[in-house]
């Protein structure tokens, strides 16, 4: 009950290396646009990036840009711009903030990396495994720049990934090859694709190990660390740099575990976070949880870049499986079993569901899941209302009080 002192979570030495990797990524994209080669493909964060890399494209991820707009708190200023041309305030605020910023000619990449504008796409490739909004988002830019728009249309609410899913999805990816050859000017090479899928597999295995470090007591990393350190798994998977990066980070984490170094000093409670991060409030929330000596040790969101199925021996089919096995595209029974397992494995005391106003696909609290989970696992659950990017949907004081009251409840259960 004592007055909590503000505590800052510990930083990672590896972070400097990641900053350089991200800078190199954006500067290479910028140089490519100036020089006209290599061609730039836009890809959704869980889209078929390996195919694009194998075809020689540099790959740009607008969701990463959306997260940057959110984290820099620029998003809420530009969402209304997209609203004014007809994009509803109720649809994905990555889409609306990104389109709004584009229409105003601004990007957080200017301040961060010196880029004057986002790198224009030569081709746009989406996968609807996460939502339909990505399709409409990319369609805006396809119309704007008159460039090809390709998409994988993934089945929804998948209970178990079946052979017919794989056959369909692999065929959709193969059907993209002629257009990608035409835009890139490169011939498709199956061996190159095998190599890229192999590197993505290595990256994803390491990323899984990084996240699994959170099971240690005390946990050596937090959800807030993971939302930052996941960047290479999102934008650099398929490249050796990502693999090398996660080897360095994993080593640092293992040292922390060995030396019992806690990411949150005096860790008392361990939380599972379901749903999107609230990008513009990461620092505030991180500070609040640290002050409450509570660590968010696992999350659905950061696990989204674990693709166990990748297999260089059957690149198209394994990509199809990897991208269809994702949590977000699965049915409710799968999702519940998945979360139950992580909650048990990570010794979780409580679950926080973020009901993100503009991201229904990533908000799992809307069909009574928290209540079922609490009854089943005897783990308290809290739902907080907010949004990934639109801070107009977020109430600072309501959220802070909800979180504080939830931790008081966990304290009471323990006493």
């Amino acid at each position, binding site marked *: *009950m*004592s*007055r909590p002192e503000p505590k800052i979570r510990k930083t990672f030495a590896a972070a400097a290396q990641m900053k350089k990797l991200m800078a190199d990524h954006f500067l290479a994209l910028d140089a490519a646009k100036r020089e006209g080669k290599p061609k730039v493909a836009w890809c959704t964060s869980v889209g078929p990036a390996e195919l694009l890399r194998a075809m020689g494209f540099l790959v740009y991820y607008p969701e990463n840009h959306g997260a940057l707009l959110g984290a820099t708190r620029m998003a809420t200023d530009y969402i209304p711009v997209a609203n004014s041309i007809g994009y509803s305030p109720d649809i994905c605020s990555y889409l609306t903030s990104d389109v709004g910023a584009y229409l105003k000619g601004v990007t957080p990449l200017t301040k961060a990396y010196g880029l004057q504008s986002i790198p224009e796409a030569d081709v746009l490739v989406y996968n609807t495994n996460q939502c339909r909004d990505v399709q409409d988002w990319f369609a805006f830019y396809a119309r704007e720049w008159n460039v090809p728009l390709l998409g994988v249309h993934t089945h929804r609410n998948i209970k178990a990934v079946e052979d017919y899913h794989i056959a369909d999805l692999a065929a959709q990816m193969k059907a993209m090859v002629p257009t990608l050859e035409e835009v890139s000017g490169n011939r498709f090479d199956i061996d190159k694709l095998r190599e890229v899928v192999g590197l993505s597999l290595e990256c994803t295995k390491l990323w899984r190990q990084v996240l699994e470090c959170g099971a240690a007591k005390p946990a050596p990393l937090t959800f807030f660390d993971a939302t930052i350190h996941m960047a290479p798994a999102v934008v650099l998977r398929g490249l050796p740099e990502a693999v090398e990066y996660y080897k360095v980070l994993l080593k640092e984490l293992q040292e922390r575990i060995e030396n019992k170094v806690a990411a949150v000093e005096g860790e008392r409670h361990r939380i599972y976070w379901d749903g999107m991060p609230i990008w513009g409030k990461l620092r505030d929330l991180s500070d609040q949880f640290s002050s409450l000596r509570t660590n968010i040790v696992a999350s659905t969101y950061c696990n989204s870049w674990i693709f166990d199925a990748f297999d260089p021996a059957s690149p198209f089919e394994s990509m199809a499986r990897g991208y269809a096995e994702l949590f977000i595209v699965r049915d409710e029974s799968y999702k519940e079993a998945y979360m139950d397992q992580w909650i048990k494995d990570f010794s979780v005391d409580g679950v926080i569901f973020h009901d993100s106003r503009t991201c229904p696909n990533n908000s799992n609290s809307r069909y009574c899941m928290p209540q079922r989970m*609490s009854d089943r696992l005897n783990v*308290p659950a809290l*739902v907080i*209302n907010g949004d990934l990017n639109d801070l107009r*949907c*977020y*109430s600072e*004081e*309501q959220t802070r*009080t*909800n979180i*504080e*009251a*939830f931790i*008081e*409840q966990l304290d*009471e*259960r323990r006493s």
Partner: protein
Amino acid sequence: MSRKFAGGVDVGSCTTKAMIIDGERRLLASRVIYSGTDFHAASLQAWEECLDGAGVSNGDVTSIVSTGYGRKSVSFATSSLTEISCHGRGCLYFFPGPITVVDIGGQDNKIIKLDAKGQRVSFKMNRKCAAGTGAFLEEMALRLRLPMEQLDDLARTADGEVALGSYCTVFSATEVLEKIKAGHPVPRIVRGLFHSVVKRILEMDTLTDTVVLTGGVIEHNPFLAELIKEETGTPVQIPPHPQVTGALGAALYALDA
């Protein structure tokens, strides 16, 4: 040996409440004042008036817990806790668990479930919307040009009710104007507004076991309790002074410290 005293200060968005109890958990004094724009000043004023009322000097109070929206503004508090914990604790002083506490505040509503041991099982706050809170009734009173203190009597004595369907406070205001234009009597409209508050609460969570109502809205509009009882069929209780339940809970926590 000198007597032991403890205090609670609940800084809400509309009013600030203070409470002093003694070591035997006896309620000595309480105060309610408007919070205004300076939460620290309001908390200080409420606390000093409460000390006067109790005839206790500040030095005799061993611990003070602050709570409520402005809990971090109470510089003289020993520690702070959320109003969720404090309303629950305050209600348990009068009624044993299991209970469901419904706190209708100036800008937010809370439903807090406590089990037979008094331990919190779950809680919910309203979403980022003031529909169904005190702010809703204030806005409607303004639209109807009625003093707030008349609402309860008007709703209670109404010979019928005008149903209001809007969720949003602004849309409700428009709907109320339409009802006036259509010639509906004001008391029936007010009763419809009260029902609207009840509907907003009932959609937040299930009301189980004994329902205990707290907060300033109930203090000044006890007819709401009758409507809730009518809607749910569950036993409904109101503590003697429901507006200061949070401050009482805070004082009880302070006594533990």
